[in-house]
């Protein structure tokens, strides 16, 4: 393990010889929405005192597409392709969360094989999301290209799997209420197994490249520390919460699908800084590989769609349902209220990136503007999901 992190940077008030605090002139800058480090169209109003950030206001909404209102206007099935476009890196986990909510509402049972396929695709999604995030984080720090391209090389293998399974690389639209749209193509499970078996080699390479790099350590250790109590109070979920040392993973805390049948561990961080967030994600990828190998070994035969499920004329009984899953970015929840008509009366998405972003000001206060970029990168946002 690398050395212990340095103490977090603190704003040291400058004092005049007579002891009074010197306040410099405050400078307000607007970072974004067209800034390459903001991962999309996201704006931050930053208040600076010299080089230090003293205030930060995130401004959302540049990519607002009316997702929830569209969901209320279209049929239950019609919202499924729109969920791909929430967090466009992880369309399969979005599909799964939405399908779970509707299945809860309509009381559909998912066949055994479909459960396994869902778990496999979700863990593949987690692998490619975390790999990309590592690449983007390093790109934000100025390691232009190399780590990102290594990560994209691995992601490409997973996207090829998605394409041969669902027909699309990113906008998969694969899951249906009561199962999956189609069965695995011949030879797919073997290919997925090979990708899973080779993935730890990439992780070793990635860790050798970065883990002990002094520049990376000095840029990330002690930067953007998120204390566990603040993380819990702010509703932060996902790897960001676990990096602060809080053991909360929905796959263990509220098992959905068939996660309770597999053995895997939840990696936790100690310090809650950017470095821990990066490390937790790398370790989580190793656990995902274990899950994938177990699931692919046990993959049963059988149907992939509940025979009671129907595509057209789907009208669940009046009621409400909330389903949540551990998406790669955190707790992704869908809340639906049905009034018995073909479209939901209320459709709400609990987007993890949006809620994780609310602590951004607390993370950035006292740091340089250059650190803001790194901290934002470690939060792992996708603007499609933040703005919806």
């Amino acid at each position, binding site marked *: 393990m690398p050395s212990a992190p340095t103490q977090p940077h603190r704003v040291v008030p400058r004092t005049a010889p007579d002891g009074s605090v010197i306040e410099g002139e405050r400078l307000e800058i607007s970072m974004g929405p067209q800034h390459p480090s903001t991962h999309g169209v996201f704006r931050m109003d930053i208040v600076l005192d010299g080089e230090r950030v003293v205030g930060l206001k995130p401004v959302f909404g540049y990519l607002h597409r009316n997702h929830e209102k569209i969901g209320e206007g279209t049929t239950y099935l019609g919202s499924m392709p729109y969920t791909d476009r929430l967090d466009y890196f992880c369309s399969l986990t979005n599909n799964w969360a939405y399908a779970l909510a509707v299945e809860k509402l309509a009381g559909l049972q998912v066949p055994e094989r479909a459960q396994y396929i869902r778990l496999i695709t979700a863990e593949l999604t987690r692998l490619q999301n975390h790999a990309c995030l590592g690449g983007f984080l390093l790109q934000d720090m100025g390691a232009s290209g190399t780590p990102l391209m290594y990560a994209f090389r691995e992601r490409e293998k997973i996207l090829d799997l998605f394409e041969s399974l669902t027909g699309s690389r990113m906008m998969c639209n694969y899951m249906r209420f009561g199962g999956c749209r189609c069965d695995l193509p011949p030879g797919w499970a073997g290919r997925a197994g090979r990708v899973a078996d080779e993935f730890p080699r990439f992780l070793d390479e990635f860790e050798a490249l970065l883990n002990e*790099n002094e520049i990376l350590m000095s840029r990330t250790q002690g930067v953007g520390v998120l204390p566990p109590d603040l993380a819990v109070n702010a509703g932060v979920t996902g790897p960001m919460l676990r990096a602060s040392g809080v053991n909360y993973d929905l796959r263990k805390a509220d098992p959905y699908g068939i996660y309770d049948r597999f053995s895997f561990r939840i990696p936790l961080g100690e310090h809650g800084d950017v470095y821990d967030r990066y490390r937790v994600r790398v370790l989580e990828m190793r656990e995902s590989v274990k899950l994938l190998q177990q699931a692919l070994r046990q993959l049963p035969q059988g149907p992939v769609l509940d025979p009671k499920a129907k595509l057209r004329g789907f009208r669940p009984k009046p009621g409400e349902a909330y389903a949540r899953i551990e998406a790669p970015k955190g707790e992704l929840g869908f809340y639906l209220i049905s009034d018995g008509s073909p479209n939901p009366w209320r459709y709400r998405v609990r987007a993890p990136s949006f809620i994780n972003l609310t602590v951004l000001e607390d993370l950035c206060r006292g740091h340089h503007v250059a650190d803001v970029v790194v901290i934002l990168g470690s939060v792992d946002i996708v603007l499609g999901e933040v703005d919806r």
Partner: protein
Amino acid sequence: MLGQGIIKGMAETARNFLGSYLKPERLVTVQYPEERLPQPEAARNFPFLVYDENDTQQRLRCVACQICEKECPPQCIYIVKDILKTPDYLGKLQFQPKTFDIDISVCMSCQICVEVCPFDAIKMDVAYELSTTGRFAQLLLHKEQLAMSNPYYHKIHPAEAAEIDARLAAEKAKAQAKAKADAQLKAKAAALPGPTVT
């Protein structure tokens, strides 16, 4: 020692750089316009309409039931029914679409129209070099541009098309057998002496 981690990382980069010359699996990119990777069978892009035999317009499988128009999430399909009915593959009289437009600048390639179609009439194409110089008219595809032959469908999705052809043939055989049985029954009924009144 300070800098040890950086040197380790550099060694990794060098290994990758040299490896890309020596090991083909480390070099994953292809030179796109000259080299093209084959598409998987499940690949999808934009929908097209399947027609049987050689008649591009009269033998469209589409019967203008407008289910896809209703189910399409971004509502990019526009259908107008024809007044005339034409016989389909079973010999049953069915409507035909007079207008069938898909605005592929709106279409999001979700495949829901394919899934809900009860007549296997609309399928996903795999063509991907579709850039045009116009934003509106050239991206609005009409019935004539959308119609593709069944052999073309076989070419792009062989397994799926063979399955559908087998199903349609079975339906046709069943319909013919039923028609034959009906005809025989009718003939029998005609041959039987009518009820007599005493």
